């Protein structure tokens, strides 16, 4: 169902990367051009004030989607439409994303200078749980978690209403991750922010997201409200991902062993990209690419071959 006033709309967005050998090799060795489709026909909408999470394993294209949204890449096909005021991005590695030669106050002030907005640096730092005096220090004087707070302060300095967060807690220890996730939730509530949250960690996503999109080999295979996705996963890949999460409760419930690995994106399987690993695959899945119907792209779900009773 279309959202009433989406802040962001992606319409059939694809992105190809040219991974051909150099020109001379292609001529001498008669190799063709090769392209890698990192994002393939992705459409979704994000409403103001919500958190949409994109999950998937490495190489599924989730970070490429993040970069397409903020405009670091241009789409090869389709288009991205943003109706909000301003967007900012938070990166995974708080060690690589802060200039080590700048004082924290200059790092946080950079977007303000460029945009001419008026926010006090001290207030920005307090907002993320740092002290105003920290502005005089350099990034190396801070721990990973504090650096990620600085990144968030910098992102907020431009007064955005939309934040794209690419694995913002993956480089952090769990106790620090909890602090950052709590901070992000509090800021969302206070400032009415909208988040795109990219993560490979389903447990983290279940804490922060309103809706979750599951990606596999460049496509969104299932998109559902978080509560629904985690209790009643429909796509076999979503079920597999949920099954692979280590069970901290130690309920001893038997786990279906997960077979195989993500295929090489340069030579994607025919039909449904998940069919080599899928227990429900049949002839049609091998031949025909499934279309997104009712927010899930799976022949077995469409044909009601999968028992959709609630899991666990």
């Amino acid at each position: 169902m279309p959202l009433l006033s989406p802040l962001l709309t992606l319409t059939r967005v694809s992105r190809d990367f040219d991974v051909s050998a150099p020109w001379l090799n292609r001529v001498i060795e008669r190799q063709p051009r090769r392209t890698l489709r990192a994002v393939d026909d992705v459409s979704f909408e994000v409403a103001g004030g919500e958190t949409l999470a994109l999950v998937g394993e490495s190489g599924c294209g989730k970070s490429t989607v993040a970069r397409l949204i903020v405009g670091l890449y241009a789409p090869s096909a389709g288009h991205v439409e943003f109706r909000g005021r301003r967007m900012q991005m938070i990166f995974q590695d708080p060690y690589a994303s802060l200039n080590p030669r700048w004082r924290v106050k200059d790092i946080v002030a950079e977007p303000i200078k460029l945009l001419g907005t008026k926010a006090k640096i001290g207030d920005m730092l307090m907002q993320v749980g740092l002290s105003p005096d920290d502005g005089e220090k350099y990034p190396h004087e801070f721990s990973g978690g504090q650096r990620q707070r600085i990144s968030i302060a910098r992102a907020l300095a431009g007064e955005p209403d939309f934040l794209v967060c690419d694995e913002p807690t993956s480089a952090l220890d769990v106790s620090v991750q909890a602090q950052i996730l709590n901070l992000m939730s509090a800021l969302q509530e206070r400032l009415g922010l909208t988040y795109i949250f990219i993560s490979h960690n389903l447990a983290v996503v279940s804490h922060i997201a309103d809706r979750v999109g599951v990606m596999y080999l460049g496509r969104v295979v299932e998109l559902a409200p978080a509560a629904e996705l985690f209790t009643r996963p429909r796509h076999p890949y979503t079920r597999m991902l949920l099954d692979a999460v280590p069970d901290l409760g130690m309920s001893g419930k038997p786990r279906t062993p997960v077979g195989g690995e993500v295929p090489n994106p340069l030579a994607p399987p025919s039909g449904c990209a998940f069919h080599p690993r899928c227990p429900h695959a049949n002839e049609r899945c091998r031949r025909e690419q499934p279309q997104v119907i009712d927010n899930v792209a799976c022949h077995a779900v469409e044909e009601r071959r999968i028992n959709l009773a609630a899991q666990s």
Partner: protein
Amino acid sequence: MILDIKNLRVEFPTRRGTLVAVDDVSLGIAPGEVLGLVGESGAGKTLTGLAIIGLLEPPGRIAAGEVRLEGRRIDNLPHEELRRVRGRRIGVVFQDPLTSLNPLYTVGEQLEETILTHLPLSKSQARTRALSLLREVGIPAPEARLHQYPHQFSGGMRQRVVIALALAAEPSLVIADEPTTALDVSIQAQVIALLKRLARERGTAVMLITHDMGVIAETAQRVAVMYAGRLVEIGPVREVIHSPRHPYTAGLMGSIPKISARRDRHLAQIEGAMPRLNAIPPGCPFNPRCPRRFERCLVARPHLVPAGASQAACWLHAAP
């Protein structure tokens, strides 16, 4: 006990004084047992592993305590002898499989070399053994894979090769330092299952070093929790996860996001951060962040005492 560590202390002398990275750590691992060693970055878990295998980077050194492998003391062995013991009796698996494999040799050559160095076998016997190792760690078509180079393997398959290498000389102890951290969740589950099966079937003692409580819950029988270089709690996995006795363990367990349908936005969090090694507070190292501290915690260092089925280094559990 296959491995028995007593009062291990690792120090790094620096110009500004000596840093104690591992402080008075004692633990043991029985045959076939998987012991999890958890802690956040800088807690000293990796250094504990390196100290056991004698691979501490100078100036780091074992300043006190002893390490026994199958009853024999190994921390004071001469360099060459320790190298032999390490190669023969201890297998090591690191986080990044690429750093443990030589890109210039085929996987078969690396396995055979390791086997021939440590076991009295002929070349053809070594090849047979290399094949059966690859088969055992679940690599499909091992005959063909034997002739391939590490870069031709995917991340999960590479980690399997590293595990096969670690097992090549039939070690009695395997030390696995974050073996699943670089892998995707679906591959992670496969590697966990493999480690568990190896411990069970071969009677190998496994020390599983990780920051991921979920991996420990799935794999280990007992778990030791480290904080600021010290053991703060050790006990059966189920006990430590369901009824943590040390406030740090309790905070750590609370801060792990869990999948639940009912979305609870607020995670329990431990305020502050782990102290740096040059600023470990007196008394209990956790006291500045502890919600349950009292006077004694500020002045006296707690040692491990029985607490339920576990042991915890916390004054809450000490006899009054």
